[in-house]
């Protein structure tokens, strides 16, 4: 019994992290039609920046912000200086070019992190206030994982409110639904794109910091996380926040239980749903468009 409870919490925690990682990815993909393959690297970069911030004596909250801001800044520069140049190309070439550029950037960030922080895996220290274990219902589990889940839920709520209740949110939703129409009706495409891209990157960066104590920070974290983000977004549906939410927790559970129950086939279990979705129901659970 304890096994199921503990693993479920682990699944929830991983789901929360995946939500931070993939919500941004989904919005960027849905609004800008860019499959941002740098997203895993943003997660990793944020984690490293957070690590340094903590090492410099800053508190956890500041480190979280620092990770998010650093990655947001980087993402903003990438969007304005590089991705924009590709936007003028004909659609068939544009998609490929964006995929390749974001891939190249992932290489650059990954090597840059290796250069600055070295090759040893480093766990992000759990802040004292959030440490320790919780005893409830006869079980013992790390308090931090509960915190991660709560933070992810709060972020999800904030994003949902933002999308549903603010003007910017309405613009994002319009753009995701029908870009041509929205742009024709005067949507400030340029500013919106940069905003969403920075937001998505920031979420990934913060996710990295938040995930540091659980996943550790190590070279290769980016290529470990990116495919997970892809699976979540494909499963949940591109451009759908609800899809990213539901998908994240489904995958969090599948991966966690898969790892412990069927370690040999853990990866197969993870990616099979993605292949099945793409083959049988390309728009995913809650998406409106196929990839």
């Amino acid at each position, binding site marked *: 019994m304890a096994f199921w409870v503990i693993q479920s919490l682990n699944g929830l925690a991983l789901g929360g992290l995946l939500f931070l990682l993939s919500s941004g990815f989904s919005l960027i993909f849905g609004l800008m039609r860019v499959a941002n393959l740098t997203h895993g690297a943003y997660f990793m970069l944020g984690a490293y920046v957070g690590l340094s911030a903590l090492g410099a004596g800053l508190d956890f909250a500041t480190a979280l912000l620092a990770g998010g801001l650093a990655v947001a800044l980087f993402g903003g520069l990438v969007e304005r200086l590089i991705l924009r140049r590709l936007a003028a190309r004909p659609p068939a070439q544009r998609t490929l070019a964006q995929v390749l550029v974001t891939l190249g950037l992932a290489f*650059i960030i990954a090597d840059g992190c290796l250069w600055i922080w070295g090759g040893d895996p480093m766990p992000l220290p759990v802040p004292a206030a959030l440490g320790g274990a919780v005893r409830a219902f006869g079980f013992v589990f790390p308090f931090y994982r509960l915190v991660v889940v709560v933070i992810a839920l709060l972020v999800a709520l904030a994003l949902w409110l933002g999308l549903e209740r603010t003007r910017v949110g309405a613009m994002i939703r319009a753009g995701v639904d029908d870009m041509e129409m929205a742009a024709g009706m005067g949507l400030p495409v340029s500013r919106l794109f940069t905003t969403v891209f920075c937001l998505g990157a920031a979420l990934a960066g913060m996710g990295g910091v938040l995930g540091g104590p659980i996943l550790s920070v190590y070279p290769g974290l980016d290529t470990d996380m990116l495919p997970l983000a892809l699976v979540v977004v494909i499963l949940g549906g591109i451009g759908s926040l609800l899809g990213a939410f539901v998908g994240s927790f489904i995958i969090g559970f599948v991966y966690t239980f898969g790892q412990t129950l069927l370690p040999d086939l853990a*990866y197969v279990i993870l*990616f099979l749903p*993605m292949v099945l979705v793409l083959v049988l129901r390309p728009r995913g659970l809650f998406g409106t468009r196929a990839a």
Partner: protein
Amino acid sequence: MKLGAPVFAVALLLVPLIPSPYYVNVASQILIAAVFASSLNLLVGYAGLTSLGHAAYLGVAAYAVAWLTTLGGLGHLAAALVALAVTTATAACFGVLALRGTGLAFLMITLALGQILWGIAYRWVSLTGGDNGITGLTRPQPFGFDLTSPGAFYYFTLAIAAPTAAAIALYVRSPLGAAVQGTRDQPRRMSALGHNVWMVNWITFVFAGTGAGVAGILFVYYNQFIGPQTLNLTNSAEVLLMVISGGAGTLLGPIIGAATVVILKNVVSAYITRWVMLLGAVFVLIVVFMPEGLGPGLHRLWHTRSKSTS
């Protein structure tokens, strides 16, 4: 170009005369990478289907050979043939799944399928040796020749790579190759003209997989080792880089790209520790400023320069 071909061929044959065995080995690696990249180019450049899971086919062939020659007790030739058959079968099955989508969907399905195979290589320890991979392989001895020396292995690689490259060139220039390129450019039109777009793409997918399998066999005999890293996303990205940087949709492009990446990895890395960053930067720069790739791009620069000076 007409003069270049025989000069190039002679140069290829003279490589083992280079005094440093290190560079002869680099040349072998370039040949293997060239076969690998050329096979992917069939999909990316000629069929217009970008795959991020091509390392899987190289890996399947390599693992098959490794397993069959160490635990399976097969001879080198038999192992290679079985490995090619297994790789072709894998590509045939995966092609059916991948071709359910085009463009980004295709990309993501190939990525997922590649990750599934990587996961199996990494996790199914009893079959693949897990993280440790399979070691202790021996090189074949075709017709009694010993392939231990770099020069001998280079000639072996060339003897396999050259016909493979020729087969790819023939495919591209054949009626089927013309159909492949036509369906890349105007799929609707080609269908209305009577071409079976799906079948054309699927055959190309399988052929590309088999080509990668050939590279995998050479790869595993070169390294005498195979590990799960060979099938990872980074490697699929790297071979894509080779194709794009050299020039997709041209025959020489992937060869130029393969040489560029291998040289960066082996030679430049001795002088510049941050060669991966350089690789990524080269990639970004090429996509932004020379999207047709180094091959056609340099060709274009060469011609505009000679036009302006004349």
